[in-house]
């Protein structure tokens, strides 16, 4: 599906020029600061692109944002402050990792709820299975697979007529 991604890219504002995201002249002299800048860049969206981080994008806007991130970091901002600064300016759209809020609760909770609900259903299903087998009043697991069960199994496994 990447083909289509590219078609979208091309039709969008992003140039389809070979992505050459971070330019040599942007890199900060301090490697620790630079690596923080790269880490932050991966969490920020290039807002004129199709789902690209500013670290990946070669759009002029992404470059401006990368420089801005580095500027703030050099000025002594913490990672959190940089993200807050950018969110205040550009809105939540700039964050690739949406913050938990009333608007995104459904998004963040869905994985948990689906997994939890699925687990409950699976457990009930598996328990019922056990109940079905221990139908003779004995919920013990081992006993149920004795004579009647065996007979029924043999019957089931008999080749068809």
């Amino acid at each position, binding site marked *: *599906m*990447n*083909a*289509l*991604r*590219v*078609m*979208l890219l*091309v039709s*969008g504002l992003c*140039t*389809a*020029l*070979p*992505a*050459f*995201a*971070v*330019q*040599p002249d942007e*890199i900060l002299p301090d490697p620790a600061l630079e690596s923080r800048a790269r880490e932050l860049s*991966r*969490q920020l*969206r290039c807002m004129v692109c*199709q*789902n*690209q*981080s500013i670290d*990946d994008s070669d759009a002029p806007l992404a470059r401006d944002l990368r420089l801005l991130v580095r500027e703030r970091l050099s000025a002594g901002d913490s990672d959190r402050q940089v993200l807050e600064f950018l969110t205040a300016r550009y*809105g*939540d*759209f700039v*964050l*690739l*990792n*949406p913050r938990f809020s009333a*608007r*995104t609760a*459904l*998004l*963040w909770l*869905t*994985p948990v709820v*689906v*997994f939890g609900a*699925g*687990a409950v259903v*699976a457990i009930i*299903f*598996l*328990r019922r*299975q*056990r109940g079905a*087998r221990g139908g003779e009043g004995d919920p013990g*697991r081992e006993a149920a*697979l004795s004579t009647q069960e065996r007979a029924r199994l043999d019957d*089931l*496994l008999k*080749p*068809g007529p």
Partner: protein
Amino acid sequence: MTAEIGHYALVLALLLALIQGVLPIAGVRLRDSVLAGTGEPLAIAQFGFVAVSFTALTACYVTSDFSVFNVFQNSHSEMPLLYKFTSVWGNHEGSMLLWVLILAFFGALVALFGGNLPATLRANVLGVQAWIAISFLLFVLLTSNPFVRLAQVPLEGRDLNPLLQDIGLALHPPFLYLGYVGFSIAFAFAVAALIEGRIDAAWARWVRPWTLAAWIFLTLGIALGSYWAYYELGWGGWWFWDPVENASFLPWLSGTALLHSAVVMEKREALKVWTILLAILTFSLSLVGTFLVRSGVLTSVHAFATDPARGVFILAILIVFIGGALALYAWRAPLLRQGGVFAPISREGALVFNNLFLTAACATVFIGTLYPLALEALTGDKISVGAPFFNATFVPLALPLLFATPFGPLLAWKRGDLYGAAQRLTAAFAIAVLVAAATAALTTGGPILAPFAIGLAVFVMAGALTDLVERTQLLRQRWPVAWRRAAGLPRSAFGTALAHFALGVTLIGIVGESYFTAERISTIRPGDTIAISGYRISFEGLVARQGANYREVSGRLSVRRDGDLIGILTPGKRTYPARGNSTSEAALLTRGFSQIYVSLGDPNPDGSAAMRIYHKPMVLLIWLGALLMAVGGLLSLSDRRLRVGAPKPARKPALQPAQ
């Protein structure tokens, strides 16, 4: 004339599909075997006419007939012949025609090789298949006709998007569609079973080869697309959690769940209701993917609102098929009788575990992909959901599943012995711990999580081998005995082991690429040398050359290790004058499973150029793993038991030891 033949053939195919959608099912209702048997010739003829149509469009492309609007927009007379072929599906209209072609192809395959199916099931399946064909043929003919002519014939075409002029991308859509559309067969089987209100283990046996074949193609299609993005987009990323990628990943996840639950159904007649639901959901996700990609909704919700014809049409198809199938399911599924019972700790239990995690992972990707669209459409608020979200939600679901993978095949059907399975995995676990410790020792000061992930990958791989070792009793018996046992194992056992092994292979690649990639970004002049991961890379200068329909500037770099020359890299930048845009051609040097990756930026007048140089350790394992998964699937598919057209087996499988 050629275009008109193609158009006309497509209309005829639609008429045939309309008949095929009614007669066979009516035949089953009226208990008229002649009527019910009309499905097969109709499906084959329908495929024939769609094939004629597709061939006609291809002919227009090969002969560069620019009077056809679609050819004019996407082709160029100087383009290499290969890309004249592949540009047929390098655009919306052509790729939808390919979609329909593959749909008809699968229908024809059922007609040709479905001889072992009960006549009523076959008739119903072909009927349902025809309904899907009708809706997509209508979609092509009414909203996306590739055969439209231009009144004034242009002299030259607008060329194919240069990024698509690449062999990896040429093959990507057909593979992907073979997967996407292949799941329509599982869907048709599920709906047919619901119509009949009867379903048994044999159903699962018939539906599995089709699902498996679709899954193999989808796996390869996704891997091809990923590798293409890696070398063509120029920054060495291989997965972006982009909505378009997710659109192909969703049916893969649920298709994988379907493969596993169908095993339970075939062997034990359990999980019937669930398996039917998964079959419906998997193809529904294929349809959702088609909607996402083809409606334009991803570019912008507003773009969709201003030109809604295509989007609304696919949305309507989506609602009719998903809604219809689910309604039928709600009505009929309670009639299906539940089959064999089993203890929570058993092979069946393990496969339930597998399905739980895969389904939750699928739901996670689904909500992450659609939530921003839904939120914007409903409230106008714009948010982004990108890689960090998926890393935070998908990965925690994937890791326990990977850890559990080796246990599944070691548990017996009905009642397993978890402690026994764990005991047999002790060796695998020990090897994993050793490798993880060695990784940690070798990369001191590196990422803390990486050794754990490598350990997990090794555990999955060694665990998959453990299954084979146990079943052949390789270490307990003499070689000839083990060999005989190996020869006696069904091929699907090797297929399972290989596919599970491949998961570990891919994981190692992912860990290597994500945690240990080295990167140098700098402007270098001819004569400069860059050191990276023990290699010394010297820039020798820039060369310009003229290609068939592009100009290229490429850099020449020599790669040395310990003073020995081991390769020359020539990363390039191509400019395509027809469209005025350019592509980057990254240069790759493969060493074992690792690669050196160089991408060229803008050259400066003084001969220097910006370059990105990466060393990506183990990166090839990502795609090698996917390839091995597909080979594992192929091995299973070649199992006599599943082979298409194999003689109808006994009603119940005989006792199979150690299965």
